[in-house]
């Protein structure tokens, strides 16, 4: 049984049912039924047009369910609308699924789960494993999400930025279980990129590719965090970098800047440097200025302070830092780094220790603790 084929067809089939007027929750149930049938029937009698077969079976299942439903009369009207049999249209019906799954009425975790299920075609168990929660919990999260959007009509495209945020959330979840969520997010964003013309979609795709290209270098074999400057640039994936840069350049040329494009531009400048010393920090500061203008985010201004420190020296970086609220996450870590570069090792060691206590994850805490220990030796 070709599991990958089934998985790649699932969102298409679901999209077609939804476009034909099936409500989302029933369409999803019908598609699952059709998949079970495929697993049963295909090994002995594989159809020539698997997608067409799935659509036909799923639509029949949906009609069966609709007929037995209390709202019989209203739903039976849909039978009249059944399109003539024939090959499924080539238009990408999954696009509306992206908007449905990222609907503003859903919480971020529900939106993520529904996207992985409906658009990504992952099983509930795979999603539960990836998020380290019990399968029953994830099943409920998904069925609640389905109920939440079951009354939503899909006649117009939703807000692209919501979809992009959901995909970026998936990307940032990283890796656990048997599904690599970063790779999954890239796959889904690529498909969105192929079906929608929007520079920020390109920006997000480029950003993901550029980050992903450096993944192998980001942690040592023992799980230790490797800072950008110390990474072995030889293990960066140059193919992904070239891919990301090309997509980004085409997007930037359209002159509709958004925050993902700006972030990708910064990632591209890092990727472009053969050694850490060759990094074009002056240009990076300019992109951080754009990003700060677009987002107003204090975290962006914190990162900008680091870049200023590299471009104009640690004193200038500390001056930029002084304008920010010292309760920001990673403020102490940035201050420690800039003080160290300025030669004030004692202050730096104290701040690294402080930053370690506030670190958001174990690898980061270990890294910062090591920095403090290194300076105190």
């Amino acid at each position, binding site marked *: 049984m070709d599991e990958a084929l089934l998985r790649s067809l699932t969102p298409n089939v679901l999209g077609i049912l939804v476009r034909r007027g099936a409500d989302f929750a029933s369409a999803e149930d019908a598609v699952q039924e059709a998949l079970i049938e495929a697993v049963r029937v295909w090994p002995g009698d594989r159809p020539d047009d698997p997608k067409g077969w799935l659509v036909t079976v799923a639509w029949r299942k949906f009609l069966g369910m609709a007929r037995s439903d209390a709202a019989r009369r209203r739903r039976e009207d849909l039978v009249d609308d059944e399109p003539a049999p024939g090959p499924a249209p080539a238009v990408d019906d999954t696009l509306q699924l992206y908007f449905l799954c990222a609907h503003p009425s859903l919480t971020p*975790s529900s939106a993520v789960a529904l996207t992985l299920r409906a658009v990504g075609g992952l099983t509930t168990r795979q999603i539960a494993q990836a998020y380290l*929660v019990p399968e*029953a*919990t*994830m099943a409920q999260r998904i069925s609640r999400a389905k109920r939440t959007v079951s009354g939503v009509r899909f006649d117009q495209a939703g807000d692209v930025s919501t979809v992009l945020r959901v995909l970026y959330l998936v990307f*940032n979840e990283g890796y656990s279980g048997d599904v690599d969520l970063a790779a999954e997010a890239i796959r889904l964003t690529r498909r969105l990129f192929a079906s929608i013309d929007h520079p920020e979609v390109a920006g997000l795709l480029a950003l993901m590719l550029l980050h992903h290209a450096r993944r192998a270098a980001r*942690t040592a074999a023992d799980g230790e965090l490797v800072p950008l400057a110390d990474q072995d640039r030889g293990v960066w994936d140059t193919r992904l970098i070239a891919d990301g840069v090309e997509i980004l350049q085409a997007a930037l040329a359209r002159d509709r800047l958004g925050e993902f494009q700006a972030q990708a531009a910064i990632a591209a400048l*890092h990727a472009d440097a053969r050694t850490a010393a060759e990094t074009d920090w002056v240009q990076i500061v300019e992109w951080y200025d754009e990003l700060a203008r677009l987002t107003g985010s204090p975290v962006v201004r914190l990162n900008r302070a680091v870049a200023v420190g590299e471009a104009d020296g640690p004193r200038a970086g500390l001056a930029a830092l002084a304008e920010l609220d010292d309760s920001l996450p990673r403020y102490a870590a940035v201050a420690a780094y800039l003080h160290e570069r300025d030669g004030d090792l004692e202050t730096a060691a104290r701040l690294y220790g402080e930053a370690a206590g506030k670190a958001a994850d174990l690898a980061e805490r270990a890294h910062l603790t090591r920095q403090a220990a290194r300076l105190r030796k």
Partner: protein
Amino acid sequence: MPKYLLLKHYRGAPAAVNDIPMEQWAPEEITAHIDYMRDFATRLVETGEYVGEQALAPEGTFVRYDGEGKPPVTDGPFAETKDLIAGFMIIDVDSYERALELAGELSAAPGAGGKPIHEWLELRPLQGEPLVVTE
């Protein structure tokens, strides 16, 4: 989607408002308390926020390496230990505010006299794997 650990203490937390030891409750009050906890967990499964829970026996043993070739040293149990953990629940929620809300709800479990215990629960974020580094 951060995960949080809710810690329930036998001892070590500040005293509850309705602070009467469980062995002095009426049997039906104990039943009501247990039902409340079970309903709470069931509702969390339904909202998709439940990760796991476990009650712990009151007595534990301390264990320590004692050198090459020797069996580990054990000590305890210490009935007088100041901080004793009674059990834990792990939840997976969208925000810190939601975690607070749920902890508050759990702290309202009924105790003696059928009134909420108002016990103190400890809420600790679980540390995860690193997110994408902002490099």
